[in-house]
């Protein structure tokens, strides 16, 4: 049994509930124990640091201090795992800069002392969930648990920004072209497509600030995946999932397109390949429904629990706009693929 401290973060508890549910559902299959940090607070995302810089480090410092505390007499797990990219980045960044700068460490600890806390820089190792699955559990063990291979699924792996970059402790090797999620998807039996935009920005908070800026960034990614004939995008970030899924509808209205590319968390696909019930994995919560995919590829029905937002009618491909992209031949013309 591998034990880790776990920081879910605000998004995984609300809009990215499917990510949390599917992550927790994998624990028994993977012999993994994720112990939630007690009474954690928000990591500040990309916003708190904009208003108060030093306090933003103290905000995260409280979480690191809580994660490093012994619980029930047992020493804390040495590794703190986060699933959300912003949480992962903020935790890793605070620990890294506190290790680098004695002055910052001292100031953060002076602030933490006001709450009776202290954090020794480096006391916990901050790692992303994908890193744990690839490097601690390993592809072989994951592959061995697959009972329902994702054969014939054309998957585009999308990492977004804040896991591969800036990658303070060099966990992901390539800041612009990581391959871990592709390896994982192949272990599940899926066909991985080349997706050059895999670490490009989803728009982040720009949906709240400038529609034109954010919808253009969303369009590039969705159009890219569509033109490479991906059945779906798989991601590891709540913000990316929200922007590409929930705002795909708004983006379609904005550009008068009709893309329909489901955006699913990697943990949901692992669970699916492990034979876990799709509802337990949070399928059905996505805006751009993956139900047709599950039905076509696996013969699995996902009950529509709530009133669904009507999916745009097929054919899904809109007129290409913006930069010209290479067009892939339609299905049936690529006989050599798996």
């Amino acid at each position, binding site marked *: 049994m591998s034990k880790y401290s776990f920081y879910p973060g*605000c*998004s995984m508890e609300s*809009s990215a*509930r499917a990510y949390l549910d599917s992550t927790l559902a994998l624990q028994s299959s993977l012999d993994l124990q994720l112990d939630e940090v007690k009474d954690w*607070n*928000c990591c500040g*995302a*990309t*916003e*708190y640091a*904009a*208003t*108060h*810089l*030093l*306090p933003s*480090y*103290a*905000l995260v*410092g*409280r979480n690191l201090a809580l994660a490093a505390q012994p619980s029930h007499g047992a020493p804390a797990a040495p590794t703190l795992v986060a699933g959300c990219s912003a949480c992962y980045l903020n935790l890793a960044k605070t620990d890294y*800069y506190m290790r*680098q*700068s004695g*002055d910052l460490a001292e*100031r*953060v600890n*002076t*602030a*933490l002392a*006001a*709450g*009776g*806390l202290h954090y020794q820089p480096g006391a916990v190792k901050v790692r992303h969930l994908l890193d744990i699955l690839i490097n601690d559990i390993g592809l072989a063990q994951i592959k061995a648990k697959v009972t329902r291979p994702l054969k014939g699924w054309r998957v585009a792996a999308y990492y977004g*920004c*804040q896991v591969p*970059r*800036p990658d303070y402790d060099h966990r992901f090797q390539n*800041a612009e072209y990581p391959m871990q999620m592709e390896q994982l998807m192949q272990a599940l039996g899926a066909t991985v497509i080349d997706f050059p935009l895999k670490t*490009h*920005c989803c*728009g982040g*908070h*720009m*949906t*709240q*600030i*400038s529609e*034109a*800026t954010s919808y253009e*960034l969303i369009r590039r990614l969705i159009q890219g995946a569509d033109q490479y004939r991906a059945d779906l995008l798989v991601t590891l970030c*709540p*913000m990316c999932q929200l922007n590409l899924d*929930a705002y795909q*509808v708004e983006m379609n209205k904005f550009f008068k397109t009709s893309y329909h590319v489901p955006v699913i968390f990697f943990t949901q696909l692992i669970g699916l390949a492990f034979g876990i019930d799709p509802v337990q994995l949070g399928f059905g*919560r996505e*805006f751009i429904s993956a139900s047709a995919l599950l039905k076509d590829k696996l013969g699995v029905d996902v009950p529509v629990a*709530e*009133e669904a*937002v009507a999916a745009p009618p097929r054919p899904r491909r809109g007129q290409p706009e913006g930069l010209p992209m290479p067009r892939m031949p339609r299905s049936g013309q690529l006989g050599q693929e798996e």
Partner: protein
Amino acid sequence: MTTQAAERPKNFLEEVIAATPGESRLEMCIQCGTCGGSCPSGGDMDHTPRALFAMIRADMRNEVLRSNTPWYCVSCYFCTVRCPQEVHITDIMYALKNFAIRAKLYEENKNPAAGLSETFTDQVERYGRSFEFGLATRHNLKFHPSKLAGMASLGWGMLTKRQLDWREPKKIDGLAQLNAILERAKTLEEAA
């Protein structure tokens, strides 16, 4: 932050360097423009990061703090990892946002970014947890009724499919502790 123990900053460049956690390396910028060329929202910025850094060196404090550039930074860190001089560009943008808020210059940009950050900060200090971005959307629905027509299906979808509710987020148990920590950090920052 690193040099705050040393003498007071002499100009805006030194001020920005002092306020950026870790080593900003801002003084190492060679004006190559890799940052602007890598930026996903660069096209919508008043100045590219490169231009902004030249303005910082020229001590154009007010012009820099009025620029929308830091507010259009999406924290994707492309510029940071690509910069041949390893300037911590994203971290510098955060420092500039702090300066702009304190100088109250951001309003002249007429962009809602600072407002979003302030709303978010307020939520964190009130609950210890955030209305995350899905909830920020909801916030928009509630407070910007002109957007309601266009966004109604999204908001409704959030409520039905995501099972979000309209109630306040749950407060953390250690909220008083958290605020004591944040208050002291603010005092330390103001003293620097």
